[in-house]
């Protein structure tokens, strides 16, 4: 009640709304371009907004954040290049759907469920910030490791018919993430003598290469089939139909918000986990998963947008950023002389309201912009490939270069393009690689930390696995692993048990 009273004046403040709108429009634009990440946009904004009032700065940044996370889905759906790691899962069903001429439908679903996810996450943040922080604090290194492993195992089975091949892709991703300085001991490893690799493999160039450049190579390899212009089904999409997925999306939102609240996990993990759940609970998808099921888009988009609210929670309550963007928001607080931390929710209440109100207004803009842009932008799919592909290549180069300003990253992007191309030709899915890349470092350091912590206790095994959260995660992970192995599958099928 008090919260509503707090945000109402802001929600009706025209100046505040105007700044959110500026942010939202830039977010739409930046997020949709592969390689230009939301965190980069926010970082740029901070440098512009530091002389502004805190409320204006917050409004703009929340606009960029919320809409930017959503608009990663646009390029994912239309050209199979996710704008950011968290949109990777959206490509799985979004692109096939738009290839079959239903880009508009895919975009409408993505818009609505991004909206629902964002609102859900922010509302939860408004109400439950305290309890969720307490829960996130209970996660020990071993739990982070198992959570990451769980994410990877479900993924392996999701994106490919061959379970092993999916897992191999995930392992390839982990391998690449291990290259560079080891974050615990600070020594270089697996750099193969290349000085530039010491800083590790940056995510964005790898992502742009694996999806963008590899896509170009694949299309070129298969021969361009221009001429037959796709008929765009711009049928009227009934809201009632869109909302049929609403009850299930609540589950994805819960997953998204909670995963978002765990520092270090974030959007990619949430969307993969939600997609895994979707595959399990949706018995009769509109089309098979991976071939354009709107249910898949719903899962991915509602989860990754729900992450926003989640990621803001530890930032507000502990001054610990949940992801790259919240780290930047944190810096805005510092620049404006505020001191986030455990007492912030009491002392900085007005800024809490600003974030909440800014986020909620941004959600409205997300919906408006999404529905406004969707019919126009869905025609991109009809631009002739011979015109589109060179532009995509140039965009890939810019995206790879822009985040660290190293030409080496452009070379890495080309390398990952080739890797992605070859793997695709051999039937290895690409999506798990990105997840492995995002999670590998976290798995490695947390695993060693867990072992190191346990090694000094009298009973190492108990101290490693003896806690309730760990036990639950362990059971989930092991059952996910076993449930997908061919041997167990056969056994279960014999006994007529459905998993």
């Amino acid at each position, binding site marked *: 009640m008090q919260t509503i009273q707090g945000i109402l004046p802001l929600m009706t403040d025209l100046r505040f709304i105007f700044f959110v709108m*500026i942010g939202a*429009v*830039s977010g739409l*634009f930046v997020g949709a371009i592969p390689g230009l990440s939301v965190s980069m946009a926010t*970082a*740029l*904004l*901070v*440098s*512009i907004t*530091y002389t502004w009032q805190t409320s204006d700065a917050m409004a703009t940044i929340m606009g960029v954040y919320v809409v930017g996370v959503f608009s990663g889905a646009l390029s994912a759906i239309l050209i199979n290049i996710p704008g950011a790691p968290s949109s990777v899962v959206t490509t799985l069903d979004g692109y096939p759907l738009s290839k079959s001429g239903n880009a508009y439908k895919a975009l409408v679903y993505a818009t609505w469920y991004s909206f629902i996810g964002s609102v859900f996450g922010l509302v939860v943040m408004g109400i439950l910030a305290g309890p969720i922080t307490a829960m996130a*604090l*209970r*996660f*020990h*290194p071993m739990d982070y490791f198992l959570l990451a492993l769980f994410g990877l195992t479900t993924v392996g089975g999701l994106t490919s018919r061959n379970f092993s091949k999916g897992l191999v892709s995930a392992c390839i991703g982990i391998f690449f993430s291990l290259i*560079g*300085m*080891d*974050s*615990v*001991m*600070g*020594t270089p490893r697996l750099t193969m003598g290349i000085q530039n690799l*010491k*800083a*590790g493999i940056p995510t964005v160039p790898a992502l742009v290469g694996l999806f963008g450049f590899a896509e170009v190579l694949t299309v070129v390899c298969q021969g361009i089939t221009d001429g037959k212009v796709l008929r765009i089904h711009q049928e009227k999409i009934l809201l009632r139909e869109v909302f049929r997925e609403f009850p299930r999306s609540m589950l994805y939102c819960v997953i998204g918000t909670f995963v978002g609240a765990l520092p270090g996990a974030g959007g990619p993990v949430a969307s993969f986990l939600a997609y895994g759940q979707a595959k399990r609970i949706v018995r009769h998808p509109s089309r098979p998963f991976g071939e354009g099921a709107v249910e898949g888009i719903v899962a991915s988009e509602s989860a990754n947008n729900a992450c926003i609210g989640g990621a803001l929670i530890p930032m507000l309550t*502990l*001054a*610990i*950023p949940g992801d790259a963007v919240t*780290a930047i928001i*944190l*810096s805005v607080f*510092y*620049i404006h*002389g505020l*001191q986030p*931390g*455990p*007492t*912030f929710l009491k002392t900085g209440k007005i800024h809490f309201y600003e974030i909440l109100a800014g986020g909620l207004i941004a959600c409205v803009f997300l919906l408006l912009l999404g529905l406004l842009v969707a019919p126009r932008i869905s025609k991109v799919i009809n631009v002739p490939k011979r015109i589109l592909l060179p532009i995509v290549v140039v965009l890939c180069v810019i995206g790879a270069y822009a985040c*660290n*300003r*190293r030409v080496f990253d452009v070379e890495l992007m080309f390398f990952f393009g080739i890797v992605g191309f070859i793997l695709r030709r051999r039937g290895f899915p690409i999506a798990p690689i990105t997840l492995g890349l995002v999670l590998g470092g976290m798995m490695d*350091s947390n695993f060693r*930390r867990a072992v*190191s*912590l346990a090694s*000094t*206790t009298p009973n190492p095994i108990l101290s490693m696995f003896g806690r309730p959260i760990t036990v639950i995660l362990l059971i989930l992970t092991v059952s996910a692993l076993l449930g997908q192995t061919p041997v167990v599958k056969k056994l279960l099928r014999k006994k007529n048990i459905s998993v």
Partner: protein
Amino acid sequence: MKKVCWVVMLIAVLSMISGSVLADYPFSSVTMIIPYGAGGTTDLVGRQFATALGKVLGTTFVPENQGGASGSIGCQAALDATKDGSVVLFTAESLGTQRVMDISKLSYADFSPIMAVANDPKVIVVSGDSKYDTIDALLADIQANPYTVQMSYTGPGGSGHVQALIMNQYNYFPAMTAYSGGSDCYLAVMSNQVVFTNSNYSTVASYIESGDLKLLAIAGTERMAQYPDVPALSEKMENSEKLLSIPYTPLSLLVAKDVPEDIQEQLRNAALEAVKDPDFVAFMEKNNIEKLYEKYPTLEDIRSFYKQWESTVSWLLYDANAATFSPEEFGIPRP
């Protein structure tokens, strides 16, 4: 036509927000690399200093966290960047130990100092519901059970590690686990993964106030004005004043050695102005941060302080068998 209009409008709006195009130094924005995670002490002070510097130079200093590997990744990035002053480095002490620790080939010699800004005192904290209420109880337990009382630290060669080595010299052997940043360290304490850590005061001040963390001791030689009852560690360990009085977290503003002299000069003058900024001074005093720019006012002072620091800590690490290479290999004399 309509589409063209849209694009033009979009570009217009975006260029409006982003302000003017780049001009001469100081550029419209200068990147300040902070080679540690957000929320750590280097980050906190760095951001405050960035704001103050920005005011003086009439530009924006954008702090950029590039954490990992005891700060070496961010330092390397600062060296690799264009050497036109568009990238500056705000870092803690680890530059002095990276070579002997085999973390990197970097040292203070690769950079030109602009200013030694601050030293954040280290404090020993346990979680709010910990069974330890005094430093004596904690120390007694560590002594009675070597390698079982768990402590989190920020990685080999970092200030947490160095102080733990000093404790080792007095026969206290905690069980140590490395985390990737200062905030991870005290979070590990708060979530009871480990028993204690030695954090920088400014990062944990609000947690001590809120009761999430308990302050047991100041890991130095002097008590704090805010907490007159909390003992300094040197009171508990005999003859440790010499080792404990060194500023273990000297935070400095540096640029790559090859940055043109006149730009270094500009930055130096700006820094001298920036430390007079009332907001900055208030921040330093509120958090009990030692003003190193008063202790080492000239560039010569700073350079000789780096030399002394490098030699003391490098040999401390090497003698404790914690360093990979002998400081001798790099021509670092014994203190």
